């Protein structure tokens, strides 16, 4: 197919929201609510109705900050400690102080939250220190309630559009995005005054132990495109060495899930049936203890439910096998696992990047603004530590509302035809090529290399070799061959995965210490060094087109942390189980 046959369409909007999963819909709803006269376009590479991490619902809100159970100050302190002190507390406070209002608003839209006899929210304790988990008895319906609001407000929705690059104007501000229609193969130029990037985690970075490319914990549509797009638009990325590694059901790669089973009496044990961690809340230190247990010869590690009453197990099944990842029951059936008398084997997942579960991503302030004027980021993509589902919604809302103020009185930024032409050429090259490498094979090789060279414990020499391999694979991208627009979308996602792999390796090499438990455990710098590394590691595209790494100081805390509390998350191990 010659270049001239590629159809191009141009669209104009005031605010463009990229990613219709969790954060994106809230950004669009809140922008439209604040100024109904504005054009707000919400797009997704999937279908907004069923896109993102919450497509099949959620079991619970992992981080509900509700009066009577917790204060925003307590929450900010807990997340600061859980994250070894390196957080932008203002962003966490921005979330925490709006958490309850967001829950009440969702409640008014029809989302059900567990309540006690007197109608108060029934918050459970899963975190190491405070209580922040709020179950959602009909969590499977959450997306439906949100989609109703999108329709009600008249937000424009576009599906099956994969954005590949952001557009910037000559004055450096954001100017829109370029996208591939992954069914028709059309090229779409979207001009906008502000862009809210909500493309989720980089879930297709490491290769799952099963070897199945799409056997990921995160929604596999979240390939890391957003990190790559933000980087190429000149935005600053933060903490990419703070990997996401989760304790998951072995092979299935779904949540185990301590947040649901914990309050019912389930917990993690080693092969001797002994409990070895005090808290099942996901943190880097928890993952380190998990890994140590596996390495000590006490492994494998299991989720234990077989001591619970039959009706309790049934209740747990009714949550875990209906919402979030409902094929979980099917998986257990295939493996002949019944919680009543079998333990569930768990394992350490491959790496990914995710602000929602750890603390890395596009740098944003408490208004969800990135370092590029007019570009916002929200959800798993941005570095607001441990933000989870509700954090994605709150930050989406913050971004949408702030963007309305930003675009007021602005004209559409100029359109740089050279950017459009260059991207058009890059995007369609794999489709126009006569022959070449199959995208799935290149992706498999790349993600295998990510496992070999980046999976913690991190070793300097290994990461250096990894960078050489990633560079070689980057060269191979020039030989990718796609036969259909769908395959073309997959081919382009590999570009983003290479970017994420390279940036994650560079950030990991730059931080010459160990921090966040297993997330950044460096064997050749086997200690935490607060004197030199109590800062964020940042990366942005340098003037020479190569990544530029630098330190960003941690702002003075707005919620002080006492010396006696600082190390609370380092004391998770139950000593009797240690060998």
């Amino acid at each position, binding site marked *: 197919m010659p270049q001239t046959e590629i159809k191009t369409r141009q669209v104009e909007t005031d605010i463009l929201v990229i990613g219709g999963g969790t954060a994106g819909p809230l950004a669009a709803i809140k922008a439209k609510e604040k100024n109904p006269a504005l054009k707000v376009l919400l797009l997704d590479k999937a279908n907004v109705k069923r896109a993102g991490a919450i*497509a099949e619902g959620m079991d619970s809100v992992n981080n509900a900050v509700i009066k009577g159970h917790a204060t925003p100050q307590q929450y900010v302190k807990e997340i600061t400690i859980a994250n070894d002190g390196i957080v932008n507390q203002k962003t966490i406070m921005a979330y925490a102080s709006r958490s309850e209002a967001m829950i009440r608003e969702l409640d008014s839209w029809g989302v059900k939250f567990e309540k006690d006899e007197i109608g108060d929210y029934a918050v459970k304790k899963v975190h190491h220190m405070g209580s922040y988990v709020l179950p959602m008895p009909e969590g499977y319906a959450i997306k439906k309630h949100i989609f109703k609001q999108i329709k009600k407000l008249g937000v424009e929705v576009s599906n099956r559009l994969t954005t590949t690059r952001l557009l910037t104007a000559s004055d450096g501000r954001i100017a829109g995005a370029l996208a591939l229609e992954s069914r028709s193969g059309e090229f779409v130029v979207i001009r906008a005054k502000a862009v809210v990037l909500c493309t989720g985690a980089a879930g297709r970075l490491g290769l799952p132990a099963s070897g199945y490319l*799409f056997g990921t914990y995160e*929604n596999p*549509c979240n390939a890391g495109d957003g990190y790559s797009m933000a980087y190429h638009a000149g935005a600053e990325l933060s903490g990419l060495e703070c990997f996401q590694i989760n304790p998951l059901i072995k092979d299935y790669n779904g949540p185990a899930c301590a947040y649901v089973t914990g309050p019912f009496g389930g917990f993690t044990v080693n092969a001797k049936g002994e409990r070895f961690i005090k808290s099942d809340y996901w943190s880097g230190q928890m993952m380190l203890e998990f890994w140590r247990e596996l390495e000590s010869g006490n492994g494998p590690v299991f989720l234990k439910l077989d001591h619970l009453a039959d009706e309790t197990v049934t209740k747990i099944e009714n949550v875990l096998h209906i919402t979030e990842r*409902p094929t979980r029951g099917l*998986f257990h059936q295939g493996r002949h696992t019944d919680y009543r008398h079998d333990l569930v084997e768990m394992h350490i997942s491959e790496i990914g990047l995710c602000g929602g579960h750890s603390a890395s991503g596009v740098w944003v302030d408490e208004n969800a603004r990135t370092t590029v004027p007019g570009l916002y980021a929200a959800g798993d993509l941005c570095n607001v530590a441990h933000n989870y589902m509700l954090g994605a919604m709150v930050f989406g809302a913050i971004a949408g509302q702030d963007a309305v103020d930003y675009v007021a009185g602005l004209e559409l930024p100029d359109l740089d035809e050279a950017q459009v032409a260059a991207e058009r050429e890059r995007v369609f090259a794999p489709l126009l090529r006569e022959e070449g490498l199959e995208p799935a094979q290149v992706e498999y090789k790349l993600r295998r290399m990510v496992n070999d060279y980046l999976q913690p414990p991190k070793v300097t020499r290994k990461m250096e070799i990894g960078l050489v391999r990633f560079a070689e694979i980057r060269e191979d991208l020039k030989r990718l061959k796609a036969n259909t627009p*769908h395959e073309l979308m997959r081919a382009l996602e590999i570009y983003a995965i290479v970017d994420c792999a390279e940036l994650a390796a560079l950030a990991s090499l730059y931080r010459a210490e160990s921090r966040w438990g297993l997330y950044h455990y460096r064997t050749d710098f086997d200690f935490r060094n607060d004197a030199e590394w109590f800062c964020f590691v940042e990366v942005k595209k340098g003037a020479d087109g190569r990544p530029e790494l630098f330190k960003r100081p941690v702002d003075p805390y707005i919620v002080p942390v006492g010396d006696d509390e600082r190390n609370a998350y380092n004391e998770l191990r139950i000593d009797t189980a240690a060998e």
Partner: protein
Amino acid sequence: MPHLAQPSVTIDPDKCIAAKGCRTCIDVCPTDILALGPDGKVHMAYDECWYCLPCQHDCPTKAITVSIPYLLR
């Protein structure tokens, strides 16, 4: 559109009403791997299933069965 030899997502052709215009599963699949074949029925075209279930849950005639993909069974 390619056909897979051993798809993890199977569609009962007797129940599928794609010929009447139904496209529900094709629309909701996040990885966009379900496609209409020349026979007027839906099939799994790419081995990229997240075994997440919107297709099965939203199909009006319950024509779809999702199994765990072979590599992780």
